[in-house]
């Protein structure tokens, strides 16, 4: 079509008067706000972290295995990272298999009517505020764990991991389903023609063909679990420690930031400055996961006509 060559998005503003040029600059500055936001986040975190590392050595931060910011005695980040990892791995164990199987069911097996009902329900699950998940963990999941495993504390890593797992199921399932649905039917039909069963088509054709999208969904969901705050604060507690017992109380990086934010540590102290160092650590972790996810999607994408 000849209209393809007529680009509507360029340079017409030269035609208009002052108002037209002004509009362009106003809209451009709106878009610039997003870039400034990123810059501001980086400046704020790095600036705060520099103040913190003037008092505490980087070596201590990355090698000490004890975190006691309230008494300002030791600032080793590992207990907080460990807590975050416990929650992240636990929630991944819950959400990745469940989310993937849900995606396969919705994409390959469910009839359109079921899909139209189930997808909005899962979207609701994704829209529930995280504070509500925290309450759900405290009032529903932890009591069940306490019945199953007597001696489980009010705050424990397992309840936090389960509830964060539930929270990220919709993310895994909807992004994976998008990837599976975009696998062309010709691939499925070819496999059926070779005598494959539906199970074989789903697991040996569709899943491998959509792998880049599914993996990208996994990484995004894990990144979300790392940054999750309120649910883990309420469910998993405020005790920074390195433990392999999932029923013990722990503290994640985010929960520590909440602890400082609620005023447990006085403003201006080294403990308070640690907020920005922990925030920077969290930001770097989630940002690299997100970039990695994008890279996986681009690198391993299968192109279909």
């Amino acid at each position, binding site marked *: 079509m000849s209209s393809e060559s007529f680009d509507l*998005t360029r340079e017409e503003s030269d035609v208009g008067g002052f108002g037209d040029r002004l509009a362009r600059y106003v*809209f451009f500055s*709106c*878009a610039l706000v997003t870039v400034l936001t990123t810059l501001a986040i980086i400046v*704020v975190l790095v600036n*705060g972290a520099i103040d913190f590392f003037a008092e505490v050595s980087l070596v201590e931060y990355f090698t000490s295995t004890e975190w006691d910011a309230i008494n300002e005695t030791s600032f080793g980040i590992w207990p907080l990272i460990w807590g975050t990892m416990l929650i992240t791995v636990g929630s991944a164990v819950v959400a990745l298999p469940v989310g993937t199987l849900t995606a396969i069911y919705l994409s390959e097996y469910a009839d359109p009517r079921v899909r139209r009902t189930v997808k909005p329900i899962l979207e609701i699950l994704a*829209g529930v505020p995280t504070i509500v998940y925290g309450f759900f963990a405290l009032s529903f999941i932890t009591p069940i764990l306490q019945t199953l495993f007597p001696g489980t504390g009010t705050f424990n890593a397992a309840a936090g991991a389960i509830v964060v797992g539930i929270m990220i199921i919709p993310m895994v399932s909807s992004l994976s389903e998008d990837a599976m649905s975009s696998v062309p039917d010709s691939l499925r039909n070819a496999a059926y023609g070779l005598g494959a069963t539906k199970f074989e088509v789903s697991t040996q054709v569709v899943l491998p063909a959509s792998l880049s999208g599914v993996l990208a969904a996994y990484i995004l969901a894990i990144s979300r679990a790392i940054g999750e705050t309120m649910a883990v604060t309420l469910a998993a507690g405020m005790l920074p420690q390195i433990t392999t017992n999932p029923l013990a109380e722990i503290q994640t990086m985010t929960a520590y930031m909440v602890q400082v934010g609620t005023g447990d540590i006085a403003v201006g102290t080294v403990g308070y400055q640690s907020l920005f160092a922990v925030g920077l650590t*969290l930001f770097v972790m989630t940002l690299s996961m997100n970039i990695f996810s994008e890279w996986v999607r681009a690198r391993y994408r299968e192109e279909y006509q």
Partner: protein
Amino acid sequence: MSTDTDTDSFDFDGSALRRKRLLGKAFVGACFAATMVGIVALIALLVDVVTEAWGWLTWEFLTYPPSRFVENYNPANYGALDTGPGGIYPALIGSIYLIVLTAIFTLFLGVGAAIYLEEYAPDTRLTTFIETNIANLAGVPSIVYGLLGLAMFVRALQTGSSLLAGALTLTLLILPIVIVSAQESLRAVPDSMRRASYGTGATKWQTIRNVVLPEAIPGIMTGIILSLSRAIGETAPILMVGAATSMFAPPRLTQPTDAFSAMPMQIFDWARLPEADFQHVAAAGIVVLLTILLLMNAVAILIRNKYNRRR
């Protein structure tokens, strides 16, 4: 009929097929069960919240400020109280004002940025960078936005732990989602309409103002309301900015630099208190929060449906 003896001796392994079928059935069962996990979890969550809140959610709960004593929240004690009953009123009003301010800010910034990217932006490195940056911002944890708000608005711009600081922080938080959804709405406006407008001699800005925006605004509104319904439930950013937990008077919209409380913050405060009965109070607060969320989503869906029918 010519018979081939070879076909009679064709050895068909029925057990392998049976095993395959069984495996297939087991797999469908597993997939279905997995799908149910999400649905059952949602039902369990809603039932849990409603049963915990049952009997504690009263009109007084909506209209009175919070109390330090859990007895004050119990409707059974209402008659015997020296003070008024305990409730969520200041936080409820705080949340509503917070969302009103956030809506105003995001409407301008979000739609403006989307218009630039869809209608004006040239195909340059800078544009690609802006779009990639927006995608990355959407993945930044909300508590990091809280730190940004604390350092930039509360401290540097000296707004204090105010309604304004909270609203600005929430604006930056949902801006990436608003921009992406507004971009989709603008993209859905057919180019033929833009051409028709240029054909009448309209300038670009006139075209956007008179043709593109009116056509895209229902979609944009749906996106903004859905994003705001995410913002109203956010706790971590307003917590870092310093939302109060025990405000006895609601903030005033005319004084945006006043201190404020908001529902998620108040719920968090109740939920972590040790007295068992505070769980009921927190649940009652959650029911109020979820009801408002539901209403906002209903409005968004109504706008979307009306818009789709017109198409």
